[in-house]
């Protein structure tokens, strides 16, 4: 039983690892958002670099493949002038290769300052953080269904950019909550930042047990769930869900839970639409909406780089 010392914070209550939004005080979330604001300025000028992390070695440990997320972390690290090493560790679920801890131990010997870890199993970054040299910082780039903290941070940064004040927002998260690390992190971030009403909209097969205990209202009917919301956060639907008998087909999913223009019209007229990407057009979201005036999906990507710069900058300095 790990006696409940928050493994992410050091003795001074500063961020030492970023493993999950769950357990982070609002002040730390605000620090990350505020720091990211400064980095947005950097990404907008000619020389998009600052010398902050010069000489630091950041290792991208992606046990689960991902081009998008890995690329944004790489860009963010390079804009901080850090050295980036990418390791695509090939571990299929059946291959018994080197264990995670062996991989990490070998790398730690190479003077790493930071590991950015993505893994298919929930809790893998926690395991690494527990066993790695205490001087090394671990950033969770997505673990199983558990957490994707930088995605949630860039989402709330985007919301803050357009809506300013969290404390009077009604926000809906639509899609496969059960399997979504993005949704879990988003819910924790929104509750910590004081959003008064968070709704999840999904069929029962895609909702985890006792999901209300996370602090959300459950809707199965999208037409009810979207009424008067200020922010619509769409989740990606994976093809595997049809095989696992969670859903009959993508078409039927789109019928009930796809975001179309007329469903979006039920939300507030100035509601914004977010999506972590990559989008399945015609499955969870209509092209009209994805490319429409209320979509902030492209700005999310830019903000994602600034957020990751902020996270790595803050961690490296603590």
């Amino acid at each position, binding site marked *: 039983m790990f006696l409940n010392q928050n493994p992410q914070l050091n003795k001074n209550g*500063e961020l030492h690892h970023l493993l999950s939004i769950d357990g982070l005080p609002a002040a730390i979330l605000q*620090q990350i958002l*505020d*720091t990211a*604001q*400064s980095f*947005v*300025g*950097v990404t907008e*000028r*000619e*020389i998009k*670099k*600052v*010398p*902050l992390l010069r000489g630091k070695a950041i290792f991208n440990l992606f046990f689960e493949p991902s081009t998008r997320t890995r690329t944004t972390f790489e860009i963010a690290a390079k804009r901080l002038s850090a050295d980036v090493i990418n390791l695509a560790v090939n571990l299929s679920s059946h291959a018994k290769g080197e264990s995670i801890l062996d991989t990490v131990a070998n790398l730690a010997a190479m003077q790493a300052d930071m590991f950015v870890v993505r893994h298919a199993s929930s809790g893998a970054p926690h395991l690494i953080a527990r066993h790695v040299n205490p001087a090394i910082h671990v950033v969770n780039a997505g673990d199983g269904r558990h957490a994707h903290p930088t995605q949630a941070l860039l989402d709330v940064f985007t919301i803050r950019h357009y809506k300013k004040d969290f404390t009077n927002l009604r926000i809906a998260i639509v899609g496969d909550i059960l399997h979504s690390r993005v949704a879990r992190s988003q819910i924790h971030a929104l509750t910590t930042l004081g959003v008064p009403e968070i709704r999840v909209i999904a069929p029962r097969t895609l909702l985890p047990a006792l999901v209300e205990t996370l602090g959300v209202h459950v809707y199965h009917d999208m037409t009810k769930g979207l009424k008067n919301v200020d922010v619509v956060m769409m989740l990606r639907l994976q093809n595997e869900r049809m095989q696992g008998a969670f859903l009959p087909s993508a078409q039927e999913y789109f019928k009930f839970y796809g975001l179309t223009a007329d469903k979006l019209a039920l939300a507030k007229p100035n509601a914004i639409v977010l999506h972590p990407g990559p989008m399945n057009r015609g499955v969870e979201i209509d092209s009209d909406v994805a490319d429409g005036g209320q979509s902030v999906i492209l700005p999310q990507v830019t903000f994602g780089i600034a957020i990751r710069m902020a996270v790595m*900058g*803050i961690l*490296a*300095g*603590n």
Partner: protein
Amino acid sequence: MIALPDAEQLLTALIAQMRPQVSATVGLVGILTGGAWIAERLHRALNLATAPAALDVSFYRDDFAAEGLKHEIQPSRIPFEIDGRDLILVDDVLYTGRTIRAALNELFDYGRPKSIRLAALIDRGGRELPIAAQFLGAALEVPASYNVDLEQTDGRLRFVLRNKKQ
């Protein structure tokens, strides 16, 4: 202890020094936060065409390894083109010179200025780098264990003395 000068008086002296030496197209770059307040006041007094810039040097400091990123980072705002422009860096207290070094490095990541001069309200000595102010309010002897900070209340500037250990 030591007698702190009147910041408003020093500002007036600084304006008087700068007026004959500063053209309308000069870009003022105030280092957040004290320098930015002064830059605002200078901009109004000197009637410059371009709004002043505010620079946060947190990402260029040389003490990151020891101090990390401070909480109170603000975004830098530079409302003019750096390329080919004469700039004046504005700071409240010139001390070791490291903040100015950071600001210089940062400005060069924005573009290639034509020239950079430095205006400071106080020079307290203790320089660790070869940096000097072209425009100066006053020199001031401050014991090493103290910091001199600029504060602004209701639009009025004043200096306060703080023990470094606190």
